[in-house]
Structures are given as structure tokens and as C-alpha cells.
């Protein structure tokens, strides 16, 4: 069945060789090259572009969390902005009130978001499909209000101003370059954790629950445990991203964590492909750049483009960019001797994650 689909990011069997190298070595080489380019980028482009890319990477971390929850585990969240806000405010409050160094705020942000995610995941066990979407939508709407209400901690409407971290002298880096590299490290760590989580037993359990919760539990998967775990882990990714954004932007305020943020996560996730790991990167770039470009047209344009993108994706390409390109690339690479080891139709299944589970039996 299509069960293992979401996790098989490298569908080509190891025995197959392209130009003398196995597919997995190709993948490893590609990954190394991509990381090298990513490290080199801030030295080649201007300050502002570096800053934009930094934000895109932060979004990618949050989107990875959302993909884990919605794409792999099938729990819809329209309110991940709330967990992002938890992370951002955890970092901001620790830095401003207690003078904690910026780097030390990331683990607590992850832990607190994880705990809140688990707490939220418990009632979510009883909600399915549109109801979970509804509750998380309400959560997204309530977040700015709650942030304003607890103004003793959050600074209310004014928010909290932070001093941006200063790069150590011996590194000889500009501040934007330093922040970029810092976020890049967090991004790589997050993707490493995420990919490992999804590759193994946990990932298979999550996908099995998405595909058919009843048969998953019949096979001995503790669905409640995995679903709350997925919620917690997903929230932790969002929280880490939020903390990074507070550190990088140097400012948090309630208006930044409203419905639009949560919905941009949904858009980014859908654009990249909800049941993919690499899709989070596409999504992050989309969410960072498209509104910036669209804002030049009109202040209503980003919303319109988001909305159109969602409709068009759902009608034409429900698996998102990574979900669309990935299998095709793999098939292209495999073409010369595909006949022997790959049953026809496998790629099609890989590409059809978002449209597998019918609403009605």
C-alpha cells in the first residue's frame, strides 16, 4: 500500500547506480553541495538579502514542524502561529528580563512549546478533521488577545524590544552574516532531527495513523501517544523558529502573531508539499518572498495571492512543489534501468499523498 510513501524520500534502491555512484551517494553529495552554497551565500549577497534569507530559513523550521503534524500525521493545524508566538515570547522574556544569553533561550523555547503542544494535543485526540482545524483556527485568533492580556509579562501592545546579538570579534563577521549562519545551524539541526524522526519507526507510525487510525492501532501502534507526540514535536519546531525570529528581528509584538501568520504557515506548507521534508524549504522561501513582492502592488495583494495559490494548488497540484518535483526527479534519474527493480506506478503513489485518504468510506 501507499503507507510508507511519506517517508521514502529516496525511492531508488541502493543497488542502482547512476554514473558510477549509488543514488544515496548522489544525494549525500548534493546535500553537501547545497550546504556549502548556503554557507557561502551571505558572503556573496547584500545585508538585506541575507536578512531575508535568514527569515525564510526560520519559516522553513516552523513549516517542517507543521508538515510533520499535518502532512505525516494528518492532524490539521491552522494555528501554528500560536506555538511560534510561544517560542518567540519565551526567548524575548528570558533575554529581556533575566538577561539570559540569546543562544540559551532556544532549548527552553523548544521545551515550553513542546509542553504546550502536548497539552493541546490531548484534547486534539478527540477532534478530527475539520473540528481540529476549527479549534486551531480559534487558537490563532485568540493568540494576539492573550498576548495583550498578559501585559505584565509580554509588554502588551508595545511588545518587547531586544538588543540583537553581537557576533564575537574573532569571527570577523557582520551581524547579518552571523545571524544567518546561526539560523543555518539551527535549520540543519532541525532538519536532521526531523528527517530522522520521520525516517524510522516513529515516522512509519505517524503515517500509518494518518492513513488509517483503526488499522494502525490494531497493529499495536499507540495512536494516542504518537499523536500527542507529533503535536508536541511539531509545536517544538514552531517554537524554535519563533525564538529564532525574536533573536533575529530583535522585536516581538502581539500583532505579528495573528491569524495571517498562522495562515501563511498553511500556505507555505501547502506550497512546498505537506508530506515532505524538503518542501518546508520551498514553503519558507515562498512565505518570505511572495508577500514582500506582492506588497508593492497593494497591501491587500499578499492575501489575495496566498488565497489564489491555495486554490490553484488544491485543484492542480495538491502535493505541493516538493511533492511534485521529487518523484519526477527520482523517476528521471531512474529511467535507464527502471524496468527491473521498480514496479510501475510507484512514483504515482508517492506523488499522491494529499489525495489518498477519502473523506467517505
Amino acid at each position, binding site marked *: 500500500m501507499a503507507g510508507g510513501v511519506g517517508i521514502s524520500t529516496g525511492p531508488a534502491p541502493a543497488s542502482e547506480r547512476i554514473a558510477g555512484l549509488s543514488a544515496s551517494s548522489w544525494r549525500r553529495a548534493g546535500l553537501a553541495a547545497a550546504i556549502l552554497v548556503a554557507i557561502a551565500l551571505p558572503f556573496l549577497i547584500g545585508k538585506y538579502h541575507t536578512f531575508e534569507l535568514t527569515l525564510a530559513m526560520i519559516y522553513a523550521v516552523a513549516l517542517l514542524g507543521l508538515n510533520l503534524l499535518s502532512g505525516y500525521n494528518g492532524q490539521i493545524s491552522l494555528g501554528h502561529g500560536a506555538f511560534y508566538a510561544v517560542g518567540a515570547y519565551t526567548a524575548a522574556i528570558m533575554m529581556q528580563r533575566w538577561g539570559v544569553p540569546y543562544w540559551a533561550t532556544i532549548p527552553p523555547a523548544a521545551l515550553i512549546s513542546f509542553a504546550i503542544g502536548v497539552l493541546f494535543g490531548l484534547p486534539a485526540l478527540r477532534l478530527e478533521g475539520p473540528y481540529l*482545524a476549527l479549534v486551531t483556527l480559534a487558537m490563532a485568533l485568540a493568540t494576539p488577545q492573550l498576548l495583550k*492580556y498578559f501585559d505584565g509579562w509580554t509588554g502588551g501592545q508595545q511588545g518587547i524590544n531586544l538588543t540583537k546579538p553581537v557576533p564575537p570579534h574573532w569571527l570577523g563577521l557582520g551581524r547579518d552574516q552571523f545571524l544567518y549562519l546561526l539560523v543555518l545551524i539551527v535549520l540543519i539541526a532541525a532538519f536532521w532531527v526531523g528527517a530522522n524522526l520521520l525516517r524510522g519507526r516513529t515516522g512509519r507510525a505517524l503515517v500509518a495513523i494518518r492513513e488509517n487510525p483503526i488499522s494502525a492501532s490494531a497493529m499495536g501502534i499507540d495512536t494516542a501517544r504518537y499523536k500527542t507526540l507529533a503535536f508536541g514535536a511539531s509545536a517544538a519546531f514552531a517554537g524554535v523558529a519563533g525564538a529564532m525570529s525574536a533573536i533575529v528581528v530583535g522585536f516581538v509584538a502581539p500583532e505579528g502573531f495573528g*491569524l495571517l501568520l498562522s495562515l501563511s504557515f*498553511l500556505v507555505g506548507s501547502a506550497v512546498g508539499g505537506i508530506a515532505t521534508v524538503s518542501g518546508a524549504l520551498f514553503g519558507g522561501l515562498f512565505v518570505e518572498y511572495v508577500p514582500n513582492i506582492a506588497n508593492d502592488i497593494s497591501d*491587500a495583494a499578499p492575501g489575495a495571492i496566498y488565497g489564489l495559490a491555495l486554490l490553484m494548488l488544491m485543484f492542480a497540484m495538491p502535493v505541493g512543489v516538493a511533492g511534485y518535483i521529487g518523484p519526477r526527479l527520482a523517476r528521471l534519474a531512474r529511467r535507464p534501468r527502471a524496468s527491473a527493480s521498480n514496479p510501475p506506478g510507484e512514483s504515482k503513489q508517492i506523488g499522491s499523498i494529499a489525495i489518498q485518504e477519502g*473523506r467517505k468510506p
Partner: protein
Amino acid sequence: MTGAPVHQFLQQLFTGLATGAIYASLALALVMIYRATELVNFAQGEMAMFSTYIAWTLTNAGIPFWVAFALTLAASFLGGVAIERLIIRPVQNAPVFTAVTVFIGLLLILNSVAGWLYTYTVQDFPSPFGDRPLLHSLLTTSALGIMGVTLAMLVLLYLFFRFTPIGLAMRAAAQNPVSARLCGIRVGRMLAIGWGLAAAVGATAGVMVAPILFLDPNMMTGTLLYAFAGALLGGISSPLGAVIGGIAVGVMENLVGTYLIASQLKLTVALAVILLVLVLRPNGLFGATLVKRV
């Protein structure tokens, strides 16, 4: 300003009944779509907001209020039909994620098109009923008017579904599409009409709430949340439940806001209600228990 505590309580109660009537209308629109298609329409609030802008444009053009209101209902009906035909039908049997995402896309588009056409400036929307105090200022003419219009709409809808052939056909199509189709009912057309009606009911809610909330593209998000709370409280499969739930939530919102919690937390209260109902009593007070075949 208010005298005795009893007076204040009654005043809040009546205000709550009026806002509750608005929530009830929107909740009813949600339930109508849910019953026909099992979809939860996250864009219902934005559809109502858009209709309200149409009414605002028409009254600003000098058309008398009630004529403009009737025209708005007609336009909303057509808009609802068009949305069903063009956007919803293709995802009718799609998985939940796809359906939810399409509704969110619709929400974003309606919201930003309204912002584009009318800007995000908050506009004044005068109440058609004036704002004179009645009964020792226990309630106002506008509150009474809102309740009256809502009640009239509910009665008309009830009569429509109960006594007209097309209402009967629509109920049949919602209850059992396959059998209805075998009986010669055009199920697709019934769904489209259902969407049109829901859009018109939502438009009523929007026009009624606009004098209270003022008019801007984001005016309905909070109202929609309360309508959801009302629909869930009453049971999302029950029209009567939606109306009772909506009114109950409206009254509760006002009383809680006055006596218990600061009104800045309104949306949080709605979140709490939604969560509690869904966890403790997922079928609401009047909803049928869902049995799922696996």
C-alpha cells in the same frame, strides 16, 4: 449610568439576545452547508462581510435601506451559488485537508478583495432601526430590530423547508443524495441552492451586525468564531440547535464579559467554549450522534 444590578443584568441579557440572534443566523448558515455537504465553511464569515459591503455600497448610492437589503440578499444568493459551482464542487469528495485549505483560500481571497476594493479603513454603518432606548432603556430599537429580522428570517426558512416542494427536495438531497437522485431530484442543483440560501442568511447576519461592529474587512472573524461556538453547542447537524446555541452563546458572551472576564479576551472565551463542547459533548445539545462505518 445603570441603576440597580437587576437593571444592568436585564440590559446585558437583551443585548446578548440581539448579538445572539446574529450568531444564530451565521450558525444556521454553517449548519445548512454542513448538513448538505458535511463541509465546515470557514469562509462563511468573509462571505457575510462581503455581502455587507455590497449593502453598504448600495445604501451609499442613495438606495433606500430595505431595497438595498433585498438586493444584497439576491446578490449574496447568486454569489453563494457561484462559489458552490466553481470552487466547492471540485473538492466535494476530497480529503479533509484539501477541503479546509480551499475554504481558507476562499477566506483569504474574499478578505483581500474586500480590502482592495474598499480599503481597510473602518466604515460607519448606520443602523436601519435607529438607536432609541426602549422600556426604560432596557433595550434599544436596534436590538429589537435585529431580533425581529432574525426571527422573521427563521420563520420564513422554516416555512420554506417545511412546506415548499423545493424545500422538501433540498432536505431529501441533504439526507440521502443517492436516493434523492433516484427519485429525480437534481442533487447538484439543490446543493447550489443551499449554498445560495446559506450565503443570504449569512448576509443578513452581516448587515445586522455591521452597525454594532462597524464595517471593515476583518469584522467577521470574531463573529464567525462565536457562530461556530453556537453551532457546535447546539449540535452542528441541527438547525434548531444552531439557533438556540447561537443565542445562548450571545447571551453568555455578554454576561461573561460584564461580570467575569475582561472583554479583551472575547475570542479566548469562544475558543474555550468550542474546545469544551467538542471534548465533552461533540454532538452538541441537539445534534444526532454520528455513527461511522469503518
